[in-house]
């Protein structure tokens, strides 16, 4: 019994008509790293929100070390020794490391804060996991990876025996991830039990002891990692095999429709390439190599020198509006900031690109608007109660489908995609690949920026790899491997 330091029994939670968790049992062994895995919308974050006191379950109970506990608010969780390191770090950039860690719990001498004791306490905690950062430096001077480690120190300062990590390696480099794994191992040695929410197979197989898979609010599998491979896990997550994830390409590229000649601006140098109708043209390279900037130049967000030919004619789109009118559309990298109006409905988000087209004498043709949205919701399988549902309530995958619908509404000829499956769960990813394939089939010219090499290789026809603003090579996708692309990316 006491092997399990945490047991959550029969946890259920619904939001209105949507069941987030359906009678889920979840248990954590002392000193283990348990990977909590599942698509977006599977219920992982809800389960953790319940554990950390952010949300109250409709039913179910939680026992810690055999004793029944109530976690009604976050401070209850902290006091019971449960803390969470969020994906979006909640830190105050202008305060120092020590001030952030002990926020609200400052030692005082009389009415004055004892900075010396804060510093000492912080340094002692850092020693525990073998890291060191100057406690008197401001938080904003550190990188994301470093701030994440500092957040772990904060968890330790609460004497936590259970730490939840929410997608911690999503934004880390390979070296930073390795350092992170080492810290996690140290925590384990100290007897701390860890729940690791992650999509990434690397995380699961490198440090996970067990895996707990959720799908649609239910548990589909709880297994030891050593008995599993990636396919097993994916199958538990989506009920399909890994090999079915990518779609066999059926498109046939035709004539050149877009040509860039020596396009140059601050971030990109002498970019030249051609894209054909019905082709998926991939843009690969490391983050910061200028891929997004190429798309932004084509779409009229950034200015440039050089020539762009569209359907044989010289064009210069100066604003997004001009681009949309001439037949381009753009699916930006950061949909929450750059594409979606979160507190508006699906309907109004889809129609905004074409709002003038569907209006007569200034008045919006609401019937047309509704039917356009309905069609997109059906064709792209957007899961929502109806088109008036607000976009903030949708999962990442469905939000992305709304953005894609938006970009298709203007009936473009060229579609620019920037990381189209970022933050999208496995099931919706497969659907989006299908959509891209169908669009290419229909003759759209598609440019796709992607940082996921397997995705780039299986979805594109040809790939241009960029490095520091220049194109280092344009290759056929069929004959490329992850290694060959990576070599071009770091040339």
């Amino acid at each position, binding site marked *: 019994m006491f092997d399990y330091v945490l047991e959550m029994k029969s946890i259920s939670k619904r939001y209105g008509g949507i069941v987030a968790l359906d009678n889920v049992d979840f248990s954590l062994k002392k000193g283990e790293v348990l990977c909590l895995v599942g698509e977006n919308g599977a219920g992982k974050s809800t389960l953790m929100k319940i554990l950390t006191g952010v949300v109250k379950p409709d039913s179910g109970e939680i026992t810690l070390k055999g004793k029944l506990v109530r976690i009604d608010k976050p401070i209850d969780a902290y006091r019971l020794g449960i803390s969470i390191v969020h994906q979006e770090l909640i830190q105050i950039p202008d305060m120092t490391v020590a001030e952030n860690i002990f926020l609200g719990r400052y030692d005082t001498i009389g009415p004055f804060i004892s900075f010396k004791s804060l510093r000492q306490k912080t340094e002692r905690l850092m020693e525990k996991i073998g890291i060191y950062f100057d406690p008197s430096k401001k938080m904003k001077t550190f990188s994301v990876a470093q701030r994440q480690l500092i957040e772990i120190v904060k968890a330790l300062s609460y004497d936590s025996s259970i730490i939840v990590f929410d997608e911690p390696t999503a934004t880390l480099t390979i070296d930073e991830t390795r350092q992170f794994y080492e810290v996690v191992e140290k925590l384990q040695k100290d007897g701390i039990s860890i729940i690791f929410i992650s999509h990434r197979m690397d995380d699961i197989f490198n440090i996970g002891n067990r895996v707990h898979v959720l799908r649609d609010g239910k548990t589909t599998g709880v297994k030891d990692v050593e008995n599993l491979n990636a396919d097993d896990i994916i199958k538990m997550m989506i009920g399909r095999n890994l090999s079915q994830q990518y779609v066999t390409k059926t498109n046939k590229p035709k004539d050149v429709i877009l040509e860039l000649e020596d396009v140059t601006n601050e971030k990109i140098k002498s970019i030249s390439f051609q894209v054909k109708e019905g082709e998926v043209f991939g843009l690969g390279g490391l983050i910061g190599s200028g891929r997004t900037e190429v798309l932004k130049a084509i779409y009229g967000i950034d200015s440039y020198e050089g020539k762009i030919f569209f359907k044989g004619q010289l064009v210069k789109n100066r604003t*997004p*509006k001009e681009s949309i009118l001439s037949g381009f559309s753009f699916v930006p990298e950061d949909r929450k900031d*750059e*594409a979606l109006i979160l507190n508006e409905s699906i309907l*109004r988000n889809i129609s*905004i690109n074409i709002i003038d087209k569907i209006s007569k004498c*200034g008045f*919006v043709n609401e019937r047309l608007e509704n039917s356009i949205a309905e069609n997109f919701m059906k064709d792209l399988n957007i899961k929502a109660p109806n088109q008036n*549902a607000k976009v903030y*309530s949708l999962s990442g995958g469905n939000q992305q489908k709304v953005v894609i619908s938006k970009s298709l509404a203007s009936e473009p000829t060229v579609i620019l995609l920037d990381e189209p499956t970022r933050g999208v769960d496995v099931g919706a990813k497969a659907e989006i690949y299908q959509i891209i394939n169908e669009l290419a089939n229909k003759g759209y010219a598609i440019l796709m920026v992607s940082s996921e090499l397997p995705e780039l290789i299986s979805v594109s026809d040809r790939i241009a790899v960029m490095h520091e603003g220049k194109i280092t090579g344009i290759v056929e996708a069929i004959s490329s491997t992850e290694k060959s692309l990576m070599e071009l990316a770091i040339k």
Partner: protein
Amino acid sequence: MAGLRKIIGKMRNTKYWELSGLIVLIITYSFIIQLNNKTFLSFANIINILSQIVVFGILSCALAFPMINGTFDLSISSLCALGGTTSALICTKGLYGIKLPFAGAIIVSILICAMFGAINGTIISRTKIPPFIVTLGMDITIRGVVYIVSNNSPVGYLPPEYLALGSSTIYKIPISVLIMALIFLIVSLVLGRTSYGRKIYANGGNYEASYISGVNVKGIRFSTYVISAVLAAIAGILMTARVGSATPNAADSYATTAISSCAMGGVSLSGGTGTVLGIFLGSAMMGMITNGMNLMRIGSNWQMIMKGALMIGAVFYSMWITNTSKR
């Protein structure tokens, strides 16, 4: 019980759910006052209330455009005074030599205010200076202009057409109330049904995303300030008509009342939300507080406390409602 849940669930999805609190408040308030003084809900008194909210009701409409667009316009109160004063001057003593009959005076004064609105719009859409600061500065500046042109004294002896605007009625309903109703109706159509209105909401909801979606964000932002100036001018003209003269310090406190009405009506300070019906109900509530409390012989100081408390309560309620529907 499940049936009730279903009904509430369906009602939640309409955009008017957030106004439920305000509606309940208005009904409850009317009930309480009516019990105390039977004349509260009489035709004559309702007309009375509507007359009292004409000026700041139209000012709330004026404010709605920049606010829903995500910015702010603090200069509406002095624009209101400017509209009233210049129109009064042009058809009486003359404004720096410009003397026109009533109709011409109206048009010219609206144009003058529109010009100031355009200055607001240009600065705000083309620079990064916070709209709060720009319009605050303009408010003080324009107030100075009002004092200068009126020579620090009220403008009286208005022509009969002007006074008629303030006092004549059609089937016992004052023309000014009808004009206010018409303005609310037009604004509601523009914001709710036109592509222009959509763009205003989009801009306020997410400026960056709207730009990338092809909306002319700068132009829209500019236009909201011209519209708010024009509507403020109209409010000023009606105010002068009703009072019978134009005083340079007029409409001093109306900006805050307009902001309260908008806030109560669901217009968030960050933009992208709010309905014209809500703004109307918010203005009505403000008017009912003054009127109702007068009938109950409660002094104006208590009325201010009431108004302030109600505004905080109403905004809190609408935020709570949106949050619970988010969960």
